[in-house]
């Protein structure tokens, strides 16, 4: 491919007008475990696979869905350590906003600031882009919202989206099932069914993680017991 000569340097465009390193970063994301999010009329749900490399890993210590502020949470697909850096930066930015304006940060502002950080790493020397896409879910004064942020720094607001492995099947499934007046409980069931579609092995509360935020504006990650209850309902 003619692009391969331009693929080593992040800050050099290829003749076809692409930054090949960003394309490769997106490939890294597509190799990551599936995550998806659905925006309902009264809340948002995000879910992710939590396949651990060995049965000896203590699954209680692994938290893939993290809280950024009391009403905003995030899931990722791709390189876990990269997501940790972004989560830390976003949490700090949210606190700085609150100190400056005495107002909890609106979700769109937090997403934009995170995207700006990700873009900076595509236009600097000596660094590489982040190998993660993030699904940010929250409930603020503008209602429930779901955003996806890519390694290039571009972000979109979605009604429902999936990232990682198996993304095309998951998106087709979501397109069929999504309705605008869906409620949060239906959204959770749909999210579980979508994850189940591409899941290898036995799905249970121990190998998926689900985070929800409803009108109470408190984002929380469901306990494995609660996830098992929802799985039983879906059967």
């Amino acid at each position, binding site marked *: 491919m003619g692009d391969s000569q331009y693929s080593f340097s992040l800050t050099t465009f290829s003749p076809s007008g692409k930054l090949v390193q960003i394309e490769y970063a997106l490939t890294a994301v597509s190799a990551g475990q599936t995550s998806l999010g659905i925006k309902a009329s009264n809340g948002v749900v995000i879910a992710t696979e939590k396949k651990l490399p060995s049965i000896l890993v203590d699954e209680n210590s692994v*938290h893939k869905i993290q*809280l*950024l502020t009391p009403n905003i949470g995030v899931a990722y697909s791709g390189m876990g350590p990269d997501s940790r850096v972004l989560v830390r930066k976003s949490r700090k930015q949210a606190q700085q906003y*609150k100190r400056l304006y005495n107002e909890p940060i609106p979700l769109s502002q937090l997403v934009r*600031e995170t995207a700006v950080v990700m873009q900076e790493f595509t236009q*600097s020397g000596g660094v590489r882009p982040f190998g993660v896409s993030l699904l940010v879910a929250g409930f603020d004064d503008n209602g429930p919202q779901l955003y996806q942020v890519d390694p290039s720094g571009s972000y979109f607001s979605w009604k429902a989206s999936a990232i990682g492995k198996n993304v095309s099947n998951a998106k087709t499934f979501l397109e069929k099932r999504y309705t605008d007046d869906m409620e949060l409980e239906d959204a959770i069931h749909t999210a579980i069914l979508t994850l189940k579609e591409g899941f290898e092995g036995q799905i249970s509360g121990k190998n998926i993680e689900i985070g929800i935020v409803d009108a109470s504006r408190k984002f929380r990650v469901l306990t494995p017991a609660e996830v098992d209850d929802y799985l039983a309902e879906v059967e």
Partner: protein
Amino acid sequence: MTKTTIDLPPKGGFSFDLCRRNAFLESQGTKMPKFRKTGTTIVGLVFKDGVILGADTRATEGEIVCDKNCEKIHYLAPNISCCGAGTAADTENVTDMVSSQLELHRYATGRDSRVVTALTMLKSHLFGYQGAVSAALVLGGVDVTGPHLHAVYPHGSTDTLPFATMGSGSLAAMAMFESRFKEGMTREEGIEVVCAAICAGIFNDLGSGSNVDLCVITKGGKEYLRNYQQPNPRSYTHSKGYHFTSGHTAILSSKIRALRNQVRVVEGDVMEEE
């Protein structure tokens, strides 16, 4: 690496570059601006189930009361609160900053904040500024290790006590505590002693006044009792204005003049338009 989008102030203490110039101006007769101090009586005590914090509500600017009902009990964490005496801006900003840092710490650790964490953050910050940040605090809360109460001084030293008072009214309040405090009081007894201590400050210290604010923190949660006691109610002028019943003013003489009252009915034609 490019800079992040939000510029933080430069790290480190205050810049004292202008101090000599300010001292010179003052010696030449320029009036230095007065800053808002909280004068204050703030107290805390440990009771059977947790901690009770109390504060008055007067803020002064020199000799003038600039706020008759300010809030001196600040939020640090869902289970920790802090009363502040000294310069109002200093206490508010230092507690806001530590509250922000505690929230980030909670996300990173996944646990509730501990009172000693807040204490260490506050004292490190105050010590770094070598007393220039004039904030004297009474910090109290309940965490996994139990109820805690600390007094923090502007230079960064701390005391850990079962009962503490700070501010200009601290002596009046401490007198009440020393005579009435006992270990293991109930909530009602604790509230009574705290109110007595704050009222002692309100009535005997010029820098303290107005109302009593309380904050009761237990394992089950925090209860912020704003204006729990109001021993100095304000009397406002009546909305209908001043009203004097008759008999208030002495009558020296009276003269009655009847107005002539005549009505004459006259027949007439309807007015014609030209």
